[in-house]
């Protein structure tokens, strides 16, 4: 396997003033995350990010009266710049890939009828991205994606596995090509299947709120309750999810880390909530009441995270930045009170996809 020793990686300052979205790897552990991007982004304190991120207002002081250290948020930086030597014959900074195969299954290991695999890749020549045409999974859950020859010198990629229109979570699996075994241009991801978790319809979805009509007509927060006590206040007019609306909004709580197809997990998190379908809050945050699964004492400071999905963004003041797919983003600091973590309009959930929290240090 080639080592990417010739890479010149420059992390640019796209998010200098926009903290809280993007890379939060200092808070996470991973097997093969795409550490090529944004790894040298420095920590920025919450005050610099603005109180709209709720750091000062919501974080519980530690015993010394200082704000919780975990309320420092990382700078966003997803850029990748490769040196001119990478744009040469033979794909010197990556691998030439012809096909990618893998497996999509549900939590029991069974195939999911109607599942699709969609892969976006980053070029090892110039760092640019393309997304490959999605393919249907076979009856046994397997899939094979052909990589076009014009865009086959690859550096990294993200597999998005989903069951469109069905109540399953979407899985994002991130890969650095250098960490994978490549045999004759073929990558086989099947040893680590992408898992789609069945989601359950909201127990309390306002009747007047259906689909696109709701998106057009309801410009206020409506409370959506889920079976385990999680509650979101969603403004349908500001939920961007492919014009699908709210009618099929569903979620599930997944204990532990079985949701992971690879890569990062949040240290200390009890599990995660997964939603279907995904959606971005555009320029607003959705207030939330998150049930504490860890039995934390009142006043315990926690960090709250989302995993980046397609088109997911975080608005901080007047600035908006995109979240990296498959990477956990620390977006809020809050405290536990009476077994609930409460987020409001200033530090609420910026995008609906994957959600979790962990106690602050």
């Amino acid at each position: 396997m080639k080592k990417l020793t010739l890479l010149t990686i420059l992390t640019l300052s796209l998010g200098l003033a926009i903290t809280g979205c993007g890379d939060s790897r200092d808070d996470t552990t991973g097997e093969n995350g795409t550490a090529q991007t944004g790894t040298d982004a420095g920590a920025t304190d919450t005050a610099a990010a603005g109180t709209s991120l709720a750091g000062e207002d919501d974080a519980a002081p530690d015993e010394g009266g200082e704000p919780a250290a975990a309320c420092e948020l990382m700078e966003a930086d997803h850029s990748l710049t490769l040196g001119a030597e990478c744009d040469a014959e033979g794909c010197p900074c990556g691998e030439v890939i012809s096909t990618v195969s893998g497996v999509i299954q549900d939590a029991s290991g069974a195939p999911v009828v109607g599942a699709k695999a969609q892969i976006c890749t980053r070029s090892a020549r110039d760092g640019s991205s393309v997304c490959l045409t999605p393919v249907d999974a076979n009856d046994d859950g397997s899939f094979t994606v052909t990589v076009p020859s014009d865009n086959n010198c690859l550096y990294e990629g993200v597999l998005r596995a989903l069951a469109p229109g069905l109540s399953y979570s979407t899985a994002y699996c991130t890969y650095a090509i250098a960490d994978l075994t490549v045999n004759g241009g073929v990558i086989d991801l099947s040893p680590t299947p992408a898992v789609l978790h069945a989601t359950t319809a909201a127990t309390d979805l306002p009747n007047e709120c259906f689909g696109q009509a709701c998106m057009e007509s309801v410009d206020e927060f409506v409370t959506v309750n889920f079976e385990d006590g999680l509650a979101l206040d969603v403004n349908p007019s500001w939920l961007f999810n492919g014009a699908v609306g709210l009618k099929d909004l569903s979620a599930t709580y997944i204990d532990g880390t079985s949701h992971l197809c690879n890569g990062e997990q949040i240290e200390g998190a009890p599990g995660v909530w997964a939603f279907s379908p995904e959606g971005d809050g555009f320029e607003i945050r959705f207030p939330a009441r998150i049930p504490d699964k860890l039995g934390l004492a009142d006043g315990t400071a926690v960090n709250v995270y989302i995993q980046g999905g397609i088109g997911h963004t975080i608005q901080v003041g007047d600035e908006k930045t995109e979240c990296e797919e498959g990477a956990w983003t620390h977006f809020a600091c809050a405290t536990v009170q009476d077994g609930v973590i409460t987020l409001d309009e200033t530090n609420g959930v910026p995008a609906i996809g994957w959600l979790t929290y962990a106690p602050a240090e």
Partner: protein
Amino acid sequence: MARIQHALFILALALCVAACGDDTSDPGDSLDTTGSAECSPGCEGIGEGAGSYPGGPYASDENALGKVLPDLTFTTPEGEPRSFSDLRNAGDRTLLLISTTAGWCTACIEEQPKLEGFYQKYGCDGLEVLVAIFEDLNFNPALPANAKEWQTQYGLSFPVVADTDNALGEFYDTGAAPLNMLVDLCTMEVLYSGVGFDESAVTAIIESNLNL
């Protein structure tokens, strides 16, 4: 408050573009532009009442480079048909940058701010930008609502249309997206076509063809 801020942002963009003579106060309908002396006057043979669309033979497959694009018709966010002829009849642009997109295409999302940057930088020199969305987030054929959401979500002041039948898919390898294509609006000849976004190549062709 956020909505007001967004509206002000759109208004500011519209005013900026209008200052260049381009009436884009309604981003979704900006193909209805009529041009202005402050902008590039366009080339001979295009503009309102300019006459017929360039004749063939037209491009008919992936090998579109150097060939003439047929007069394709798309759908605006408001559900109105918009064709390349409509674009040419606007008369104040000479070069067209077409970019395909889909709701599932992260690479396309990454590209949108760059396209907006091109539009702001080169619009008054004659560049028009057109994003054509062909599928939604769930891989269904795109509808006008998807074009509207895309334009709003990414704050685009140039036209976004739904290419419900994926008509542009005939002219590139649809194994990957996005397509980026530069077209001479006078002749409708394809000057550049590539999957992915080669910013330096696109910039060079834009500046060369706009004599910058």
